[in-house]
């Protein structure tokens, strides 16, 4: 074996045996460095006869290449091993819990969620969302709504009053969202399509009554809207809200001072455990009141009841939330108990849309 080959074999063995980057570098320097054993071979090139130089040079370069390759491979292998060792030392207990983050903690109250659902449905039918103050005067809460002074609804047992003012009148906490009808009609001209969701107040407190609760009022006024339209709007609303294909409604004649004819609407339902299934079963549950706006109400806002007509309805928002999402006690809605809010509340991304579905 030539001297070159022998040298190559020797160095390759050393590379193979090397166990760390520093040692490897020493081998590289001792072989390929300026004073290295392989570099020294090249120095002898000049002493060779001219005809051997080419093949010798070629041979030495071959060795250099082989060594560089081996060094590179070994270096990569050592780096891999070192990395593997480091990674092994870095291993963590991946079963340790992480913080859930704010999106998982936050909640939207069921009333807000249901209001968003209602807005979504009625916006699609061309209704605006109107608002009015909670502290109302006699005119908007009663008189304009055709509720005379001696009507039982005006008596103290139902209505929260504020202290008598200098003129002898008292402001009230609105007992329904209907005053928003009056404010809306008084401030713009028909055609009108609005809903008015909001807080209302009555002196009452038990499992299904709280002194404050939420209603949504609906009002459509133009020259031709009739009871057939009213039935259609309610049917579409209830189907969309309860997300069922069919809702069977039953209209019972009733009496509200501000509508004529006045009806209460029952829906067919069935109770399965804690769940209320709307549109099934053979029991009836009262769900809302409605009617054609009373001519006296139209007159009170300066409309001509011979020309303009329309309907109004009122639904309890809390009640809708209870029916759809199954919270049994209305008082809990306003108790701000974190456990209740977490259980019945909605996630941030549960934004009700008609495209994506309302319920979550």
């Amino acid at each position: 074996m030539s001297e070159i080959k022998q040298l190559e074999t020797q160095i390759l063995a050393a590379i193979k045996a090397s166990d760390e980057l520093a040692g490897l570098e020493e081998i590289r320097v001792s072989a390929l460095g300026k004073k290295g054993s392989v570099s020294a071979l090249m120095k002898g090139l000049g002493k060779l006869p001219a005809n051997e130089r080419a093949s010798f040079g070629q041979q030495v370069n071959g060795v250099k290449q082989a060594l560089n390759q081996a060094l590179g491979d070994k270096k990569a292998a050592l780096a891999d091993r070192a990395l593997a060792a480091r990674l092994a030392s870095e291993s963590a207990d991946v079963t340790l819990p992480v913080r859930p983050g704010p999106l998982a903690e936050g909640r939207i109250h069921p009333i807000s969620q249901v209001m968003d659902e209602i807005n979504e449905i009625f916006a699609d039918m061309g209704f605006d969302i109107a608002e009015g103050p909670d502290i109302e005067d006699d005119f908007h809460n009663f008189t304009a709504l055709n509720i005379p002074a001696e009507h039982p609804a005006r008596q103290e047992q139902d209505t929260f009053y504020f202290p008598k003012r200098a003129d002898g009148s008292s402001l009230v906490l609105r007992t329904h969202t209907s005053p928003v009808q009056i404010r809306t009609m008084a401030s713009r001209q028909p055609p009108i399509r609005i809903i008015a969701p909001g807080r209302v107040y009555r002196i009452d407190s038990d499992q299904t009554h709280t002194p404050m609760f939420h209603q949504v009022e609906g009002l459509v006024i133009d020259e031709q809207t009739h009871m057939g339209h009213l039935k259609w709007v309610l049917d579409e609303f209830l189907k969309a809200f309860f997300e069922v294909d069919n809702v069977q409604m039953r209209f019972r004649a009733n009496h509200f001072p501000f509508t004529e004819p006045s009806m209460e609407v029952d829906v067919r339902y069935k109770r399965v455990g804690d769940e209320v299934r709307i549109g099934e079963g053979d029991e009836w549950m009262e769900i809302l009141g409605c009617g054609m706006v009373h001519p006296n109400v139209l007159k009170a806002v300066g409309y001509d009841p011979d020309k303009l007509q329309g309907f109004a309805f009122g639904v309890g928002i809390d009640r809708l939330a209870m029916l759809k999402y199954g919270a049994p006690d209305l008082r809990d809605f306003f108790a701000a108990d974190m456990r209740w809010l977490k259980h019945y509340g909605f996630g941030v991304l549960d934004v009700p849309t008609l495209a994506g579905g309302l319920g979550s």
Partner: protein
Amino acid sequence: MKFTLSWLKEHLDTKASLEQICDALTITGLEVEGIEDPAQTFAPYVIGEVLEASPHPDADKLQVLNVDTGKGCVQVVCGAPNARKGLKGVFAPVGTYVSGIDLTLKKAKIRGVESFGMMCSERELELSQEHDGIIDLDTDAKPGTPYAQVAGLDDPTIEIAITPNRPDALGVRGIARDLVAAGLGTLKKDPLTKTKGKGECPIKIELDNGDQCPVFAGRLITGIKNGPSPDWLQQRLKAVGLRPINALVDMTNYISYDRGRPLHVYDADKLKGPVRARAGRDGEQFLALDGETYKVDERMCVIADDSGVLGLGGIMGGEDSGCTADTTSVFIESAWFDPINTAMTGRRLNLMSDARYRFERGVDPSSVEDGLHLATKMALGLCGGEPSKIEIAGAAPLRDLTIELEAKKQFKRLTGASLSENKIEKILQDLGFKVKTKGAVLTVKVPEWRPDVHGAADLVEEVVRIYGVDNIDTTPLPALSGVAKPVLTIRQKRVSRSRRLLAGRGFVEAVTYSFIQRPHAKLFGGGLACIELANPISSDMSSMRPGLMPGLLGAIKRNRARGVMDAALFEVGQSYRGDQPDDQYVSACGIRFGHNALSGAGRHWSGNTNSVDLFEVKADCLALLCQLGVDTSKVQISRDAPDWYHPGRSGVIRLGPKIILGYFGELHPGVLGKMSVAGAVAGFELLIDDLPVPKRKGVSHTRKALKITDLQQVKRDFAFLVDIDTPANEVVRAAQSADKKFIQAVNVFDCFEGEALGADKKSLAIEVTLLPIDETLTDKQIDEVASKVIAAVSKATGGEIRG
């Protein structure tokens, strides 16, 4: 209003079932609230005849009966002393739930002898307390006949809700009329007959109070024999919840329920002089039939004689002049009292009666004389006697109202449905309206018993309610546009976005009451007398809330009491600065309490969350502002937060000197103490109504073109020694304005105080980001900007650059 099925059938000729009748009542507006059907309650009980009775072989007091139940004979062991051969009693078979002993009967072995059911006592059926023996009936009924039928207990009681507009339905005949119109039968002829009477009525009637009592009719009947009323009458009154008293009193109650016509009977021998309706006088009082003494005043209409007040007109009579079993002469009153005054009087005295209930809703004024005739006939039938002629003072306040109705057109206009004039006429006639049709116009005479009907719309309502809303077809509301247009106002959008943003930062939404206790309202700048409820449900809920903070603090207290120590709550809603519509404002309020932060709450292996502090909620508040479209680089922070915040650890977010957008900070420990809230609380309030409304730049949604460069940005750090009171934002603002061309951002990355700096100094370190525009910044350019930053900060704050 309660009545029984058999009572209804005295006025209504019908083949309809109980269920059909109840459904029709509910749909047409007399909502059935309850049906009590004793036939159902007593359904399992049948007549059983004892065929044999022999002593029990193993018990002295027991007998073994062989009972014919109509469905074969069974053996029954019985302990009743009166059980004997031939007795007909009430048999309950195995499987019957016997309410009086709260037991469902099973086949039993009593002292070795099998027993298949039970012969019942009255107590076991809850008919009475009688338990000395089993029921012993004197009847021809065959074994197996339902007991309810034999005992006359098969008359269901129906209770309906009466809306305030339907006084006519406070009499059974009025209810029958609705059912006739609904197509359930025909109205039986009114059995009313008129009794002329003999001789003038010796008791005169005077009216001093024509507004409140415009008409008063009466008559005397002498030689009567009062006493308990007959069984049929007692049973009917009991069924509707009334206590039988004596024949004359029961007669008035019966007519009140039968016709909605209240009457009153006086023992004529106890009256002194004429009877008059007049205003009460201060100081007068009387003992009423309910055993209470009532003081009257001049606003009330009383019935009086020479001795004083006899009773309250249209509400309740007096004990002293009332009819008893010994009464031999009766004066019957049939009058009409003003609804509003009756209601006000009753309310003032907190006195409810069947008469008041009817008069305040409106009794048929045309029924004054007829009512008296009805009473006369019934009184004579029950008690005999000799009636005088009728005495009438005043005149009935008849409305005599006629309405012209373009029936078909109006019906179509309001309902969208078509109904012929004939059908409309039929419905109105069935309801007692007198109708003349001429072409398309119906001339409708309103019966006096319908004070709620004023005009054409009321008539259409009558027709609709009988026709049935369920029969009206639905009609789609015309769409206003193909794709629905957005409808929310900027404020409505902001309210909705606030909720989602805050929930996204880990807050849980609460909805708390709009009213809070006054001491709490005062702590938060409220407690104004004008928004203090005059009649609160409790003192804890008496003041309209001045802001959302107190309600949420109350929620913290309750949650902490349940062991929830670290959490974040928010509310978005209305509060009140006064009683006018403009005083109501909408804000968003968030609070963090205990150890709570955006990253999480409480302890965690990766690092515990610190106690809440002002910077956590400042971040919440600014994040919210930003998401509501406010440029937070334009707002200023001042230190003058309201009193409920920690004075040194709170801030006000302002836009210019006048507009306040919100507050944030740690809550004042003194305020928390007064509200009994323990632990650290930090919170913010954002005044949504006061946020600037973005100017709409036309309708374009196009954004400004973006200019960016590939050149690398450069960062330089500076540390300044400033006075300890120097607000950090002054340093930032000065640095920011040092060079508008290149300075992109200024970030405070360190802030510390220490003895080495001197007690009145602090060090603020900022990182300034420079952005090259056309070419890479040269060292010279960078140094120039750096000098400007140092100079600007120094000029603005007196701060020195630290070496």
